[in-house]
């Protein structure tokens, strides 16, 4: 399973590339993200009311909880990048495996575990570093100057 960099849905059946479509937000990677950043697409999805795209949403699914979890990830990434060199991210990714595998590592949690994470203190930071190294988060999402 893979995590969607737009809506943070953690159980995409295919990697977010090669025109695969997120079942949650409906983003087609390679198409929709050609002209818009993940952050811009996320904002469009939020402004549309966070509709579930494909079929019926999983039982207990909450767009708010999912976005909160994702925003927490982004915040931890910001903090980590402000406090440490980017090489730390690469080292963590190398430790976790190939970049494509890093996606899987982040998104491998079951939905139950995912919701557990949203309501508890989260983060050794490793998963976040994997997200950065895998290119899941663009610099535009981190704010000006925060990568310097």
């Amino acid at each position: 399973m893979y995590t969607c960099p737009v809506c943070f849905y953690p159980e995409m059946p295919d990697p977010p590339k090669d025109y695969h479509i997120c079942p949650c937000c409906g983003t087609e990677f390679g198409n929709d993200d050609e002209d818009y950043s993940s952050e811009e697409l996320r904002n469009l999805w939020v402004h549309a009311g966070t509709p579930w795209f494909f079929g019926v949403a999983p039982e207990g699914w909450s767009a708010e909880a999912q976005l909160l979890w994702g925003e927490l990830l982004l915040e931890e990434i910001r903090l980590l990048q402000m406090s440490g060199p980017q090489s730390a991210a690469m080292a963590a990714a190398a430790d976790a495996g190939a970049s494509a595998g890093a996606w899987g590592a982040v998104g491998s949690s079951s939905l139950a575990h995912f919701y557990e994470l949203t309501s508890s203190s989260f983060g050794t930071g490793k998963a976040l570093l994997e997200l950065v190294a895998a290119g899941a988060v663009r610099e535009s999402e981190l704010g000006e100057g925060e990568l310097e």
Partner: protein
Amino acid sequence: MYQRSSHFMKHGADVGAVDELAYEAMADAFMFGQMNADTRDCTRPNGDDYVRMDLVKTDFGVSCVSTGFLRTFYKPPATKIKNRGGPAMFLASECARMN
């Protein structure tokens, strides 16, 4: 099957497909059938993405060379095509994509 279903949900109405099977048939015919006079094709620099576009109808598709599978088939929004300078420029930019 999920990919076919999700692509139909996203693009089926735009290309005039009434159901998943019709969408797949249209995509197959467009990507693997004989090209009409308005259609151009290319292979991206990665060597694995085969691209076709009908410059008049603006139907657009991508298939995977190594597997022979469809990747996508849709009609890009008119504004997206216009922003890239028209159908020919849109196709040129898609053909040149490195990712």
